[in-house]
């Protein structure tokens, strides 16, 4: 699948933002005044920047409001509702923290839970796609949720953050291990795609078209896969191991900032791989397993 920068930025930034908002909503740390303004601003900034990046992926964004209409069947529509509901419900909690208005914490807890639910809906957009076997697995939402919770815990300065960051690494490893066999396990070949397996073993004679098209650009992405092994090591180090080590050092707030920058870079690498390594079964018609 084509690793579009808009979608990579969207899922990485909003995942981190909603993860942090969950910790703020639940009252993991109870800031006030300018301190609260800065922390809530960071959470909202990341979440909203991510959502804005997502709109750049749309070919016809003027209809974006219609995306709220189909939550009965569509995970993308559910995500639209969950993200907007989270941002609206947490807004008074943020104001209450900043101006110490003493709003009941239960509102923050509802908003914080919705924030995690938002990340789950994002993950389900990919998980539901049966035609991309690497994504169609329960480890996909586990991976998105672990990233959000670990990133949120890291920004909130929780003592458990290094452990959660190491859990991100373990989940990434599991996702790659399972994912590498996913396409073969799905059992689709050029033979089943064309039905010519009942005759013999097909292979491409002439391409259907000599020039590129939307399908080849969007779903049969092969550029850069040779660097995948290196990128996996980089993603593992930056997203998981290094920020966990930095957080264990007595660097205080600067340690959190450094860990956050490392983790975000690693998360972007991991998310690039999530798209670039995902193979769509339509590639079978073109003789590409991907």
């Amino acid at each position, binding site marked *: *699948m084509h690793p579009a920068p808009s979608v990579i930025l969207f899922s990485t930034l909003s995942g981190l933002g909603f993860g942090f908002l969950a910790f703020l909503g639940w009252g993991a740390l109870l800031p006030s005044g300018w301190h609260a303004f800065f922390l809530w601003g960071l959470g909202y900034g990341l979440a909203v920047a991510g959502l804005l990046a997502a709109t750049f992926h*749309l070919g*016809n964004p003027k209809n974006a409001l219609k995306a*709220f*209409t189909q939550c009965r069947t569509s995970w993308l529509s559910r995500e639209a509702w969950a993200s907007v509901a989270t941002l609206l419900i947490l807004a008074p909690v943020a104001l209450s923290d900043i101006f110490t208005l003493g709003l009941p914490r239960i509102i923050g807890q509802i908003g914080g839970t919705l924030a995690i639910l938002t990340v789950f809906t994002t993950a389900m957009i990919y998980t539901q796609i049966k035609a991309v076997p690497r994504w169609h697995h329960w480890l996909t939402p586990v991976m998105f949720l672990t990233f959000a919770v670990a990133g949120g815990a890291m920004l909130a300065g929780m003592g458990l953050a290094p452990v959660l960051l190491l859990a991100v690494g373990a989940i990434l490893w599991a996702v790659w291990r399972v994912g590498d066999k996913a396409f073969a396990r799905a059992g689709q070949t050029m033979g089943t795609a064309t039905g010519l397996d*009942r*005759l013999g*073993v097909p292979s491409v004679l002439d391409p*259907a078209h000599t020039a590129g098209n939307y399908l080849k650009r*969007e779903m049969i992405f092969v550029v850069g896969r040779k660097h995948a092994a290196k990128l996996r090591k980089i993603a593992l180090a930056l997203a998981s191991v290094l920020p966990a080590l930095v957080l264990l050092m007595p660097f205080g707030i600067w340690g959190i900032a450094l860990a956050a920058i490392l983790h975000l870079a690693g998360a972007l690498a991991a998310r690039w791989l999530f798209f670039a390594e995902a193979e769509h079964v339509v590639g079978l018609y073109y003789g590409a397993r991907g």
Partner: protein
Amino acid sequence: MTSLPQSTEKRLGLVIDLDTCVGCQACVTACKGWNDGGIGLSDQDPYGADPSGTFLNRVHSYQVAIPDAPAQVVTFPRSCLHCDNAPCVTVCPTGASYKRAEDGIVLVNEDACIGCGLCAWACPYGAREMDAAQGVMKKCTLCVDRIYNETLPEEDREPACVRTCPTNARHFGDLADPESAVSQLVASRGGYDLMPDMGTKPTNKYLPPRKKGPGTASPLAPLLDIKATGIAGWLDRMLGKL
């Protein structure tokens, strides 16, 4: 609404005969020609160095290695299969993608499409292409603007690809009716679904190429084993010794 209908009255679709298709691309051209009218299917750099465009129908060609028989070339048209369990419909966040309860045709309401591309991701068959100029999703409409169009002569009220096919490899009809010509064809020729394990329950069916007999030696083969005699034979021997 992106909920799928429980069942549809008719199941209009295509039956494509891979035995008679010769891969002439006439269906591709007729499809593009008919659907290019009105809102259109855009092309990018059509006469330049890197042409690209939106098509609703593509014809692939494959060579099939068959054990103990000569290899076969199969040309393979690929377009929307108007699935009963269409994954492209349920993923749509705006309701632009829908399946008609009356005849089962899967359509896109372009006025509601946001161009997110999720329906194209959900389709295992690559039936949907985003129009690069309009930013909305395009797909086969089963020529819904022809098949019910009473201003057209009756023989033209079928999809443009079917109307144009010079070898009659494409058939259009109601696959819910077991008595229809297309259903009879599917029954008699062993029509099949593409990637049935994907759970999409396609309406369109493909008829397999008939098995060819064993390869026979060319009638010209004896002529290949020529022995030179007479002067030519003497020359052949002498030149061979040089």
